[in-house]
């Protein structure tokens, strides 16, 4: 099975998808760690960005109503995603929502923001669209979980020991 990234011109997505392809074939601890590190790097970048005072709705167009049967999420780089309601049944989307809650709290006055870049949301959307395999879903959930662990660690973010629960596969 070859996973074609959505908007495949991005080297990051290509890298991730190739990596996941390999994981899918033969789940290697090394690859998992590599991928987790990628995610953690993104998480660290994101933290930096969030710490800066945000210019409200800088790149957001005036909020518009979602199409029927859809909900809206934003990426940390303020890209708007219109997703079908049944995506809320996806474990990955649910996990990202939980992570968003831990990161941003539950916003009482605005739209939902997922704690990842547009690229990663596109990637996840692509996977769900193509019908993700159970193993791959598991692998991604592990990455999200490891990214969460890094959020809880002290701010020094010196994650020296990547102990991923690889045994669960």
């Amino acid at each position, binding site marked *: 099975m070859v996973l074609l990234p959505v908007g495949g011109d991005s080297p990051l997505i290509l890298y991730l998808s190739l990596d996941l392809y390999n994981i899918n074939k033969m789940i290697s601890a090394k690859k998992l760690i590599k991928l987790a590190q990628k995610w953690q790097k993104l998480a660290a970048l994101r933290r930096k960005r*969030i*710490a800066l*005072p945000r210019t409200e709705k800088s790149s957001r167009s005036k*909020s*518009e*109503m*979602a199409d*029927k*049967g*859809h*909900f*809206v999420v934003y990426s940390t780089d303020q890209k708007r995603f219109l997703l079908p*309601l049944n995506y*809320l*049944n996806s*474990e990955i989307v*649910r996990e990202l*929502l939980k992570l*968003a*809650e*831990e*990161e*941003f*709290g*539950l*916003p*009482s*006055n*605005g*739209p*939902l923001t997922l704690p990842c870049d547009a690229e990663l949301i596109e990637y996840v959307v692509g996977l769900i669209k193509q019908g993700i395999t159970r193993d791959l879903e598991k692998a991604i959930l592990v990455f999200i979980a490891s990214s969460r662990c890094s*959020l*809880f660690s*002290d*701010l*020094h973010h010196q994650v020296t020991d990547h102990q991923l629960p690889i045994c669960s596969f």
Partner: protein
Amino acid sequence: MLSGLMNLLRACFRPRSDRHVHTNSETGGRQDGLLWYKDHGQHVNGEFSMAVVQANNLLEDQSQLESGSLSLHESGPYGTFVGVYDGHGGPETSRYINDHLFQHLKRFTSEQQSMSVEVIRKAFQATEEGFLSLVTKQWPMKPQIAAVGSCCLVGVICNGSLYIANLGDSRAVLGRAVRATGEVLSIQLSAEHNACIESVRHELHALHPDDSQIVVLKHNVWRVKGLIQSSKTIYTLKGVGMCKWWIWVESAGAGCLFISGKVLSLSSLMFFGSVSRSIGDVYLKKPEFNREPLYARFRLREPFKNPILSSEPSISVHQLQAHDQFIIFASDGLWEHLSNQAAVDIVQNHPRNGSARRLVKAALQEAAKKREMRYSDLKKIDRGVRRHFHDDITVIVVFLDSNLISRASSTVKCSNISVRGGGISLPPAALAPCTTPREGGRL
């Protein structure tokens, strides 16, 4: 037997939309998907309307309306008791309050032979102590119960007086008619526990004279620069401002800021946030529960001597007047979407029947708008994942009939009424935190 078969067939072919609608015989309320409601009921001082919409996998809001004798004796005093309990970290505390607070209140009313501020204070205290002993008992097996708490809003109408007791961020709002204009004004009755915020803000501003943005008001929440609210998480930030480090701990609206370093002494410990008082949250009140086996992520890193949270309610007494029309009791799930006046206007401008349900609907429409989606789609989202779109919402509208209120309480004879706000109870097998049944929810 044939009729039984017919019933079975009827049940099978019933249209999907009303599959979850049924009358709850215990409370007289109706459940429609994630919405529970009792559009109309009668209490000793007038009418009432109740509605609850569930967003969490397990409903954390609990509520009750009790009317009739407020003591253990038939002789009264008579009146109406309303309770809205907005739990956080789990449903255990709010459920405990729902089962015990009113019983304690009745006991103390009997002892004192009248209703008073003291009776209510004692009932709160007994409930807090009762929950503490429950936590102590369950602690070895279920340590996370130390991190469960609840806001607690109580209203008691008795002998022409209205008592309001509050811990946390639920709110009671009175609708009072202005004779000259015919308008109905909103008057907030419950106290907000944000006095601490002021002192923390001043202190932070004093510490950071060059940084006017150190504490900012955003979405009606005071935030410290660089810190983002979160539930049940602990962040440490290094090198922010002049402080060596600080920690922000928050649990569903309750927040603590710990500042340490050169600027403040190590033992400096401050609390601020909208919920500075609660029942439960034992780990923030008793240092002996801020340790293993409670999960590290719940624990505070800095030891503390004095309780961070208080369980002392703010209690006020109001003499009800002839032009006092109704009181809206609601958890913050409603108030984060509707202003006091908007809520009062909705109640005033529509029939009494279904008032509470109408307020819930208005709040959900507002929540859908904020999430940039349609209300009809919001209603399709299952409980559990629904919490990302709105909070549990409980509303009780108590209408005041001036004739019934002015009448001496001893002459009002009626049977006791007891209504509990409903929700979906899960079968034990489905209690795992991540399982959300697909069939769960239609509002």
